[in-house]
């Protein structure tokens, strides 16, 4: 589209120039057309007044120090319901398995001995040794069926008996 001096830019074309996306023809037209340039100037004047006043207003607003802001942030985080929910969740995740381990119910209603109450390895070994020695002692005192019926002695006595019989 060729823009002539007589025809002015449309509102959309003016907006594109303001946005910074205007065509070179539109820019060239604005350089020559006082009316279109005036519209752009009016808008920029409004915006400049706004920017200047609003920035001065912002500068006049008292600001907190970043340190205070950081502390406030930590406080907010500590008091946050999400943090509390997470803490409770962690507690449950750790607490439930521990509770189950310590209070695991057996079918007859009794609880299994816990690891803390069970004896140590050394104690177990000592007990085993004791039981072995008891077993050994018992087996030494107890007569075996072989010795009880003198199965091994019988032939010898039988042989010894014969001369006796003979002597009789």
């Amino acid at each position, binding site marked *: 589209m060729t823009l002539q001096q007589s025809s002015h830019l449309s*509102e*959309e074309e*003016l*907006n*594109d120039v*303001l*946005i*910074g*996306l205007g065509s070179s023809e539109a820019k060239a037209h604005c350089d020559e057309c006082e009316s279109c340039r005036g*519209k752009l100037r*009016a*808008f920029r*004047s*409004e*915006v400049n*007044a*706004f*920017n*200047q*006043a*609003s*920035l*001065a*207003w*912002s*500068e*006049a*607003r008292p*600001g*907190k120090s*970043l340190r205070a*802001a*950081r502390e406030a*942030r930590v406080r907010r985080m500590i008091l946050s319901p999400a943090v509390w929910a997470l803490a409770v969740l962690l507690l449950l995740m750790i607490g439930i398995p521990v509770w189950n381990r310590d209070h695991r119910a057996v079918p007859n209603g009794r609880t299994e001995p816990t690891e803390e109450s069970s004896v140590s390895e050394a104690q177990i070994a000592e007990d085993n040794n004791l039981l072995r020695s008891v077993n050994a002692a018992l087996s030494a005192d107890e007569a075996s069926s072989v010795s009880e019926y003198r199965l091994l002695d019988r032939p010898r006595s039988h042989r010894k008996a014969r001369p006796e019989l003979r002597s009789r």
Partner: protein
Amino acid sequence: MAATVSELEDVDALVRTHRARLLRFATYATGDPDLAETIAQDTLLRAYNNRGSFRGESSVKTWLTGIAINVMRDHVRTRKYKFWRQVKSSSIDVGEVSSFIAADGLNPEGMLLAREKVKHLSRVLETLSNNQRTIFLMKFSEDMSVNEISEVLGMAVNTVRTHLQRALKAVRGQLGGSQ
């Protein structure tokens, strides 16, 4: 580049240089000066804590504006669940803002006219949609290019252009009535 990195290393310089601009942007983007104060603080704090991630692909100003946008989104998301609170805890005092116009070289009549311009544009901005207002401020107050706005907002260039066209149509249309 060294200048920008040192700018981020010095927290006082960071606050001194960018706080007012961020506060203005957040104030007009949210329409809530108290919330804007928090957003500006959080933005500067987040920028300082994450200064190592600044790659220098944009200016510090643009980078900070991007962080401010994310902080605002976070606040909006959080506020959705705070339904017992008021939507806005404070609002912009347009008259107060307009009183900050500098009197440099202006006669009383010019001063009055400038104040009216500020009031008028402030009121017109309130009538825009959130996207239109934010993009308008990024373009005309933060002086960002359409490409920078597109990148910061994660929006297509044509979408940014459409929002700007609509915002300008509304702003220029209503300003035209006052001129």
